[in-house]
C-alpha cells in the first residue's frame, strides 16, 4: 500500500511538469493512416519554413464531432481543424466559435469552384485543404476489353450496358452501403449525383437548403433512379441485401476476381487506396480506370459532385479576430502550392490549389483525369449531405437510404426525412 502511494506521488509530480511555452499551433484532424502521414509531412515542411513555430497535431477519428463539440463548449478548442462538415461550419460560425479570415488569409489560388463554399453569410471562414471527386465509376479495364464493353456516355447507355452484362450472365454493380456508424452515406452520393443530372444545380441547391421539400417530384425522381439500379436484384451483387451488408471499402474487391463478380463501382477518388490495399498488384490506369458518372438530362451536362475538407480556425481569444498570427501563418501555408503538392502527391487525392503542377503531383492517370474533371466541370457542387444540418445530412438521409434499399416504400422514407428536415431547419 505504501509503495503504491509512493508510485502515485511520483506520477503526480511527473505529470505536473507543464508544457514549455513557445509559439505553438494546435491542430486537430481526423485523418488516420496514410492521410495522417501525408499531413505530418506537410507539418514538417511548415516547421522547416518557420522554425520558430511549433505545431502540435491531435488525431481524432470517429469521435471528432463529439470531441470538438465538447472542447468548444468547454472553451478549449484546438486552433485549427480541417473538417468536411460545411453545414457544421456554418452553425459554428454563427455561434461565434470561428474566426473570420477575410483579409487574413489569401484564397486567390484556390480552385474557383471551391472558394465560395468557404463563406458563411458573406464572410470567409474556411480555406480548402483537400478535395475529392465523387462522380466517378470505377471499372476493370481488362474485363471490359475482354467482353467488348464500351464506356457509357449517357444514362441510357449505362442502363443498356447493365442489361448487356446481365444478359452475359454477369452482375453489373458492386455497391457497398455499410460504413459502421456512418452507414448509408455512399447512397447519398448516388442520389446527389443523380439529382444534379436530372434536376440541375439550382434545384439541387434548393433541395440542400430545404427550399423544396423531400417529397418534391425532383427529389422523388432522383431516389427512383437510384432505386432502378440499387433495388434491382439482377443489377447489384447480392441484390439489395448485398448492397446493405457490404462495407463500402470492400466493394471494390469483386471487380477484380476472375471472372469478375461485378463490373462497376461508383465511388469517389479516395477508393483507389482501398482497392490497392486489398489488391496490391493492380496498376491504376491499366488494370482499372474511371469514367464520369454519365449525364442524364443533356441540358445539365456532366456536373461534378465533390467533397473535401476546409480548415477552420477556432476562436481562442487571440488578438487577431480571436486567433494568433502564427495560426494564420499556418493556415495560409496549408493552402499554398508547396503544402498542397506534398499532400496530393502523397495521397493521389485532389489538391485545392489550382496552381499546382498536375503532372509532377499526381502519380497516376486516374488522379490526373479527376483533376481535369474538377477544373473543367460543367458545374460543381459540394456533397449535399455534408451541407445539411446533422440531423438530416448525417441522420435521416443516411437512414433513409438504408430503409429504402431494404424495402421500405419510398413515400414512407421521404415523409420521414421531411419531418426531420422541418424539425432541423425550422421551416
Amino acid at each position: 500500500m505504501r509503495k503504491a502511494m509512493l508510485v502515485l506521488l511520483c506520477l503526480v509530480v511527473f505529470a505536473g511538469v507543464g508544457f514549455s511555452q513557445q509559439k505553438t499551433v494546435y491542430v486537430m484532424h481526423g485523418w488516420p493512416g496514410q492521410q495522417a502521414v501525408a499531413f505530418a509531412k506537410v507539418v514538417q515542411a511548415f516547421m522547416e519554413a518557420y522554425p520558430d513555430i511549433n505545431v502540435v497535431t491531435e488525431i481524432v477519428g470517429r469521435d471528432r464531432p463529439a470531441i470538438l463539440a465538447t472542447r468548444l463548449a468547454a472553451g478549449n478548442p484546438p486552433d485549427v481543424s480541417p473538417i468536411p462538415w460545411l453545414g457544421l461550419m456554418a452553425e459554428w460560425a454563427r455561434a461565434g466559435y470561428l474566426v473570420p479570415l477575410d483579409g487574413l488569409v489569401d484564397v486567390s489560388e484556390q480552385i474557383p469552384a471551391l472558394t465560395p463554399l468557404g463563406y458563411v453569410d458573406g464572410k470567409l471562414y474556411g480555406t480548402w485543404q483537400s478535395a475529392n471527386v465523387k462522380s466517378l465509376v470505377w471499372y476493370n479495364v481488362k474485363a471490359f476489353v475482354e467482353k467488348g464493353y464500351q464506356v457509357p456516355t449517357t444514362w441510357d447507355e449505362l442502363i443498356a450496358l447493365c442489361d448487356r452484362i446481365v444478359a452475359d450472365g454477369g452482375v453489373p454493380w458492386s455497391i457497398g452501403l455499410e460504413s459502421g456508424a456512418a452507414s448509408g452515406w455512399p447512397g447519398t452520393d448516388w442520389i446527389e449525383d443523380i439529382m444534379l443530372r436530372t434536376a440541375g444545380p439550382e434545384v439541387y441547391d434548393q433541395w440542400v437548403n430545404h427550399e423544396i421539400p423531400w417529397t418534391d417530384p425532383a427529389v422523388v425522381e432522383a431516389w427512383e433512379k437510384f432505386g432502378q439500379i440499387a433495388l434491382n436484384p439482377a443489377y447489384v451483387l447480392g441484390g439489395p441485401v448485398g448492397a446493405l451488408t457490404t462495407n463500402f471499402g470492400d466493394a471494390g474487391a469483386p471487380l477484380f476476381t476472375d471472372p469478375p463478380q461485378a463490373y462497376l463501382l461508383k465511388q469517389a477518388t479516395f477508393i483507389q487506396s482501398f482497392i490497392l490495399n486489398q489488391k496490391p498488384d493492380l496498376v491504376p490506369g491499366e488494370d482499372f480506370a474511371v469514367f464520369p458518372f454519365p449525364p442524364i438530362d443533356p441540358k445539365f451536362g456532366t456536373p461534378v459532385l465533390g467533397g473535401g475538407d476546409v480548415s477552420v480556425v477556432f476562436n481562442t481569444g487571440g488578438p487577431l479576430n480571436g486567433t494568433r498570427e502564427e495560426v494564420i501563418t499556418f493556415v495560409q501555408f496549408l493552402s499554398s502550392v508547396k503544402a498542397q503538392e506534398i499532400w496530393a502527391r502523397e495521397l493521389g487525392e485532389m489538391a485545392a490549389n489550382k496552381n499546382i503542377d498536375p503532372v509532377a503531383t499526381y502519380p497516376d492517370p486516374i488522379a490526373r483525369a479527376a483533376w481535369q474533371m474538377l477544373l473543367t466541370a460543367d458545374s460543381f457542387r459540394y456533397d449535399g449531405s455534408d451541407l445539411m444540418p446533422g440531423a438530416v445530412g448525417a441522420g435521416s438521409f443516411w437512414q433513409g437510404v438504408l430503409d429504402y434499399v431494404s424495402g421500405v416504400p419510398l413515400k414512407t422514407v421521404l415523409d420521414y426525412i421531411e419531418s426531420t428536415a422541418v424539425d432541423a431547419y425550422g421551416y
Partner: protein
Amino acid sequence: MNPVRLLPRMPLHVFLVVIAFLWFIPTLGLLITSFRTPGDIVSSGWWTTIPGLFQPGQFALDNYLRVLNQEGLGVAFRNSLFISVPATLISVIVASLASYAFACMGFPGRRLLLVLVVALMVVPLQMTFIPVLPIYRKLRLAGTYPGIWLAHTAYGLPLTTFLMYSFMSGIPKDLFDSASIDGAGPLKTFFRIVLPISVPALASVFIFQFLWIWNDMLVALVYVGATPRVAPITVAVANLVTNRGQNWELLTAAAFLTMILPLVVFFLLQRYFVRGILAGAVKG
C-alpha cells in the same frame, strides 16, 4: 477420478465445453484473421485456413509488424500504463473506503446516500463532459494525468462502490466484535480485517476497472486529448484505420496486442479468486 463418479458428470463436462467453445469461436476468428492479408480476409472465411494451419505461407506477421512499427506506439503504451494503473488503484481505494463505511458503520443518511450512489451508475458519462470540463480548465486539470485519474475514478466509482459494498456487507459481524475487544479503531479494523477478507472482491473489481480504463478512448480524448505525448494506446490504434473505413487486418492485430496486458493482469489476479479466505475465518 473413478468411472462411477465420472459418468454422471458427463453432462456437466459437455455443457461446459460447449459453452466455452461458443465463447471461443469469435475470438479464434479474430486471432486467425489478424494473421491474414487484407485480400484474403474479404474473399474467404477465416476457418478455411484451419485444415492447412501448419502449412507455410498461410499466415504472415505483416499486420503485427505494421501495428508495432507504427510511430509512437511505445509512447502510447506507456501513456496507457500511466493512465490506467494509478486510476485503477485510486478508484479501488476510494471505493473500498466508501463501501467500508456504507457496509460496516452506522451514520445518518447512509441508506439514502447508498441508493443515490448506485443510481448514479446510469448517468451517461457523455452528458457529464460539458458541465465538468470548463471547471477542469479553471482548476488546470484538463490535459493532465491527475485530471484523467480523477475522471476515471469518478466514472468507475458508482459500480466499484456498489460491488465492494455488496461484498463487505456480507462480512460476519462477530469479526468486528472481536476487533472491538482488541481495541482496534476503524482504520485498523479496515486494514487488519476487512481488506484481507475482501481480497477476492478487490481482485475482481480491480481487474474490471483496469479493463475499462485500459480500453477507454472517449474519456481520454475528452480529458487529456489526442496529442501523441499523452494519448493512450486506444487513440493510437484508432489512427491505424484509413480515413473512412476500417483496416480490418490491422485492427484485428491491434485488438490482440492491446488485449495482452489486461489478460496478464487477469491471470496474475486469478490466484486471488480462491476459496477459503473467508471460510477459514468463520466458525460456521
